[in-house]
C-alpha cells in the first residue's frame, strides 16, 4: 500500500483553552462522550452519510483548503472526516487525547462549514454536518478553542456575543440616533414599537465597535419610510456562535430570545443586517433545533430587503458608484439562502461596473473566516491565510479585470477577506452593501 503523504503542517500557535481542555481528558470520558453523542444525537442522518460515502474524493477540489495546500489530501473534506469522525466511529470512541486535540483543530479551523463540498458530492452528503458532529463532541469534552468559547460564554450570559450589558445597548442606539439627527433632523431609531412592520436585528459587534452600521441602516430605513423597530431588551442580537461550537442548547436559547422579541413586538417580519452565519442560525439550524421547520416569523437578510427597497423605488440612487466593484457571495446567504441573483440586482443598481469573480454565485470560494474559524482567534490566523491562497488568486484575477472595491455582504467574510487582501497584498477596498447605499441614495432633506 502506498504510504500516506505527510501533511504540510503550518506553524500552530498555542491555544490555551484547547490545551487545558485536552489535559483534563481521560480515556473513559472520551469514549463515553463519543458513544453518547453518536448513539443519542445522530441517528439515521449520520449512518446514511457514513454508509453512502464511497470515498470517491470528488469533494476534494471543492475545498479551498485543499486547493490552497497544493492538493494535500489531508485537507480534502473526505480527508478531514477520515481524520476525525470516521476514526471515532471505527474505534468506537476509543481515541486518545492527542487525537481529540487534532480533531478539534481540524473541525474548528480547517473547515468553514461553507458546504461547497456538499454541492460536488454525487450523493449530496453534507460534510459540514459531519464536522458539526465532531464539534459537538469536542464541546462536550470541553476542548473548544478558547476565543470562540469565550464568545459562546458571552451568548449564554448576555444573549449577545460581545458581552454587551443591558443598558449599553439602548444607550448606543440613542447615541447613534442623536448623531444621525445632525444629518436627518427627524430620524428615529424606534425602540419597542409594538406592531411595527419590521424588527431590525444585528450582530453585537455593531453596537460594540461598528455603530456606524446601525447609523447607516437607520438612515436607509428613514429615507425609505420603513415602519421599523428594534427591541430594547434581549433578542436584539441575531448572531449565534454557539451554533458553531456545538453548544446546541445555548444556540436554541439565543434563537428563541430573538424570535420571542419579534413576537412580543408583534412585527410582521424580521430584517437582519449583513451577516451570514446569523442568517444560517435563524433560517436553517437554530429554528430547526427548536422544532420550527421554517422560522415562526418571516425573516429576511439585508440583501433581500435592499433588493426590495431598490426594486420598488423606495430608495433612489442619485448617481451610480463609478468605481468597478466585485462581489463576494457569502456561503450562508447564497448556498444557504439563494440570494445570489438578488445580490447582483442590488450590485448592478448601485454600481456602474460589476466585475464577476470566477467561480461565482453558489460556486464561489469561501472567505475562510466563516463557520466560526475567525472566531477561534489569533492562534489560527495563519491557518485561515495559508488555507485560502486560492481566494487571493481569485481576487487578484478580478482585480486584473478592473475591480477596485470588493463587496462582502457578511461580517465574517468582511473580516476574513480583509486578512486575505492584506496578507497577499491584493489591494482592494472592502465594503458592505449598506455602505454604498448610504453613500449613493437620495437623502431626505
Amino acid at each position, binding site marked *: 500500500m502506498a504510504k500516506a503523504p505527510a501533511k504540510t503542517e503550518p506553524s500552530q500557535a498555542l491555544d490555551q483553552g484547547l490545551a487545558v481542555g485536552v489535559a483534563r481528558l481521560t480515556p473513559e470520558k472520551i469514549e463515553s462522550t463519543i458513544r453518547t453523542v453518536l448513539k443519542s444525537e445522530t441517528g439515521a442522518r449520520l449512518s446514511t452519510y457514513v454508509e453512502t460515502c464511497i470515498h470517491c474524493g470528488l469533494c476534494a477540489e471543492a475545498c479551498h483548503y485543499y486547493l490552497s495546500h497544493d492538493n494535500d489530501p489531508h485537507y480534502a473534506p473526505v480527508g478531514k472526516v477520515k481524520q476525525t469522525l470516521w476514526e471515532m466511529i471505527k474505534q468506537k470512541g476509543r481515541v486518545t487525547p492527542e487525537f481529540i486535540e487534532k480533531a478539534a483543530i481540524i473541525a474548528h479551523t480547517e473547515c468553514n462549514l461553507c458546504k461547497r463540498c456538499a454541492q460536488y458530492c454525487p450523493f449530496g452528503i453534507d460534510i459540514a454536518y459531519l464536522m458539526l458532529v465532531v464539534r459537538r463532541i469536542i464541546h462536550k469534552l470541553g476542548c473548544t478553542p478558547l476565543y470562540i468559547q469565550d464568545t459562546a460564554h458571552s451568548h449564554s450570559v448576555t444573549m449577545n456575543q460581545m458581552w454587551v450589558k443591558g443598558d449599553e445597548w439602548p444607550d448606543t442606539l440613542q447615541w447613534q440616533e442623536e448623531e444621525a439627527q445632525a444629518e436627518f433632523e427627524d430620524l428615529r431609531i424606534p425602540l419597542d414599537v409594538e406592531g411595527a412592520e419590521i424588527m431590525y436585528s444585528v450582530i453585537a459587534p455593531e453596537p460594540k465597535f461598528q455603530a456606524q452600521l446601525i447609523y447607516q441602516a437607520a438612515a436607509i430605513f428613514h429615507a425609505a419610510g420603513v415602519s421599523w423597530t428594534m427591541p430594547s431588551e434581549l433578542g436584539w442580537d441575531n448572531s449565534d456562535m454557539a451554533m458553531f461550537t456545538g453548544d446546541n442548547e445555548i444556540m436554541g436559547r439565543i434563537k428563541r430570545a430573538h424570535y420571542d422579541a419579534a413576537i412580543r413586538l408583534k412585527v410582521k417580519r424580521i430584517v437582519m443586517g449583513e451577516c451570514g452565519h446569523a442568517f444560517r442560525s435563524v433560517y436553517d439550524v437554530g429554528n430547526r433545533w427548536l422544532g420550527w421547520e421554517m422560522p415562526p416569523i418571516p425573516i429576511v437578510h439585508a440583501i433581500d430587503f435592499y433588493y426590495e427597497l431598490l426594486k420598488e423605488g423606495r430608495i433612489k440612487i442619485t448617481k451610480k458608484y463609478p468605481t468597478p466593484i466585485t462581489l463576494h457571495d457569502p456561503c450562508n446567504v447564497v448556498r444557504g439562502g439563494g440570494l445570489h441573483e438578488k445580490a447582483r440586482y442590488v450590485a448592478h443598481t448601485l454600481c456602474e461596473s460589476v466585475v464577476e469573480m470566477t467561480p461565482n454565485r453558489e460556486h464561489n470560494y469561501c472567505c475562510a473566516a466563516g463557520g466560526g474559524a475567525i472566531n477561534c482567534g489569533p492562534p489560527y*490566523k495563519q491557518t485561515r491565510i495559508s488555507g485560502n491562497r486560492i481566494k487571493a488568486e481569485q481576487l487578484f484575477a478580478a482585480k486584473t479585470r478592473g475591480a477596485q472595491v470588493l463587496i462582502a455582504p457578511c461580517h465574517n467574510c468582511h473580516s476574513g477577506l480583509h486578512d486575505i487582501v492584506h496578507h497577499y497584498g491584493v489591494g482592494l477596498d472592502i465594503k458592505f452593501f449598506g455602505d454604498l447605499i448610504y453613500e449613493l441614495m437620495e437623502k431626505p432633506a
Partner: protein
Amino acid sequence: MPTVEFGGKSFTVDEDGFIDDYTNWSEEWVQYVKKEEGIEELNDEHQKVITVLREYYEKNGIAPMVRVLSKVTGFKLKHIYELFPSGPGKGACKMAGLPKPTGCV
C-alpha cells in the same frame, strides 16, 4: 508566539499582532503600532483614546463599547474612526495594549 523588535525593545505578539500581555505595553509599542496601522501622526487625541481604553480595561477586563469611548473622550464616532482607521476594536485596542476582542471582529 512571534516577537517584534521596535525602538530597541522586544515584544511578544499574537498572530493578529496584538501584544501578549497588557502589562508589557510601553511608549515604544505605541510607536510600533502607529507604523503598523499606517497612522501618520500621533496627537493628544490618540493619546486620550489610549488612556481611556487602558483605564477601562484595567477596571473591567474588557474593551469598552465604542459608545463609552465616545462619551468619555467627547469624540464623535466618525472622529474615532478618523483617528484609528481600522476601528476601535482593532487599531485602537491594539495600540492600547489590549488583547484582540473576541467575537465576529
